């Protein structure tokens, strides 16, 4: 991030929340006094719980920290029945340490690390079990995407951000193909980022930046990227527009936001298409119970249009067993089988007979891929739009 963020403090009476953002490094109590006045005002104005939102506070010096502690101590006296809920992010490395300490010191204070479980499927998706799935997927999608990206406006020497970059392989491919001026990948899985780092190191690549971060609260500066991508990611969030808003924010006016998502019930395999269809329908339901919308793909066009994007383009990557390396395609489905009948089924406690039937459908899909007379598809929806110049 190249910009220094000034400090801001906002109180929303409606949400009973004070949000502190940017850099707070007061020299002493006098310099903190205006902040304290806002906090006191908020504490006077609410009942029950006052939320202190530190998600975007990047810097706090120890003087500021002690002043916050004073405020909390004063609250305990002035408003004995008021609880303070400190909402902190693991993306800011000092925050859980410091605020966790405050939570242990003060009886009126609760600390919530909001990005521990900020959407229901979190744990299941960030697990490193997913690595082989992501790898094989990128491999087969890239052969199509490489050309298609140009049609959606990606050119050479651009500033690019890949949000929810997973294991970082897409960033590497883009780096080689498009020689960006700057490219950063952000993800919220430490195992994935470690993998990304290791891979980049092995390939001798040093100028891709990988960042631990939350797509709904990016620390990247506004209006600073020519091309912002988020692939196969919006579909796993229960509130995709909260990410999309951030993608728009960091995109330059005139730049483009590029998304890919699936429509899982459109996956198809002939001849045993009923079994295949059942499995994908059921997988969608399981994912839904974890807050994901695996049929999100076709909805992107209206979403981008409604958000005010210009020149919205949408198409499909038509992956079939006729245009894709059969072994790779089969491996992708096999890794889904493993992931859905393993991780996902365990997390949602599927009965054994359901797991078995799920498995059959994946195997029938693979059969369709490999069979001389079979036909199999995995359509991926691609959409992009231009951010208005204003």
């Amino acid at each position, binding site marked *: 991030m190249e910009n220094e963020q000034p400090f801001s403090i906002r109180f929303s009476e409606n949400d009973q929340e004070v949000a502190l953002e940017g*850099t707070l490094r007061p020299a002493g109590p006098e310099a903190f006094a205006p902040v304290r006045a806002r906090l006191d005002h908020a504490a006077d104005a609410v009942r029950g719980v006052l939320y202190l939102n530190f998600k975007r506070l990047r810097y706090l010096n*120890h*003087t500021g*920290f002690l002043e916050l502690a004073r405020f909390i101590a004063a609250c305990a006296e002035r408003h004995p029945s008021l609880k303070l809920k400190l909402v902190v992010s693991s993306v800011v490395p000092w925050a859980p340490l410091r605020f966790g300490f405050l939570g242990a010191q003060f009886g009126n204070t609760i600390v919530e690390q909001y990005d521990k479980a900020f959407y229901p499927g979190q744990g299941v998706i960030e697990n490193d079990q997913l690595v082989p799935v992501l790898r094989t997927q990128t491999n087969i999608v890239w052969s199509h995407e490489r050309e298609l990206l140009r049609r959606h406006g990606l050119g050479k020497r651009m500033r690019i951000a890949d949000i929810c970059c997973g294991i970082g392989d897409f960033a590497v491919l883009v780096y080689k193909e498009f020689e960006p001026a700057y490219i950063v990948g952000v993800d919220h899985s430490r195992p994935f980022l470690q993998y990304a780092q290791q891979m980049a190191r092995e390939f001798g690549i040093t100028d891709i930046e990988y960042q631990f971060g939350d797509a709904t609260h990016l620390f990247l500066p506004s209006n600073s990227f020519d091309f912002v991508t988020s692939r196969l990611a919006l579909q796993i969030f229960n509130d995709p527009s909260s990410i999309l808003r951030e993608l728009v924010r960091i995109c330059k006016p005139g730049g483009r936001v590029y998304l890919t998502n699936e429509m899982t019930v459109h996956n198809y395999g002939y001849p045993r298409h009923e079994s295949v269809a059942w499995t994908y329908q059921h997988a969608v339901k399981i994912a839904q119970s974890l807050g994901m919308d695996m049929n999100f793909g076709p909805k992107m066009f209206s979403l981008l249009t409604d958000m005010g994007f210009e020149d919205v383009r949408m198409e499909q990557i038509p992956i079939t067993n006729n245009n894709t390396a059969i072994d790779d395609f089969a491996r992708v489905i096999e890794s889904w089988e493993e992931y859905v009948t393993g991780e996902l089924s365990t997390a949602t406690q599927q009965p054994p007979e359901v797991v078995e039937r799920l498995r059959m459908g994946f195997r029938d899909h693979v059969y369709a891929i490999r069979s001389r007379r079979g036909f199999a598809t995995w359509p991926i929806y691609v959409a992009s739009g231009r951010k208005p110049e204003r």
Partner: protein
Amino acid sequence: MTSDLAPPSPPGPSPILTLRISVRGLYDSWTHCQRLADYIARFVASDRFDPEQLTTRLSTYLNEVLEYVFRARPSEGEIVVEVGRTDEHVIAELTIPTDEALAQRLRDDLGRVAPADARARYEAEFESMILRPPAEVGLLELVALHGVELTLREGDGAGVIVLTVPHE
């Protein structure tokens, strides 16, 4: 050809940057502390994996030490900041010109942030520190909560605060 082979010196940190700041220049503005801390942190972290995380941590720690120096008010001369790196740590050394009184003060303050009991002391005294923060409290917290190591080395008319920060 003969040569006196010196015994191999232990591998020290490989140097990254050296900055000299006049004491007066620093005092011009409180915000110099954070500007310097941010600049140094960003520079040092730039080629690392996830530079943003390392920048945030380094800037947080350096700023705390610089604020401490700002408050300790050495009277004249230059503050030198040298930063280097080993495989596991970033090491920052801040050399501060001292007179007798300041040398003693550094000795006292840094003596009170020993890692062995930092956490226990920080916890036990937190309530009273909120009301009357001792001069070294920001440094104590670095050691107590953030796993940073702080030591003092004394030279001729100078004190060197050594900050050792694990990469991750």
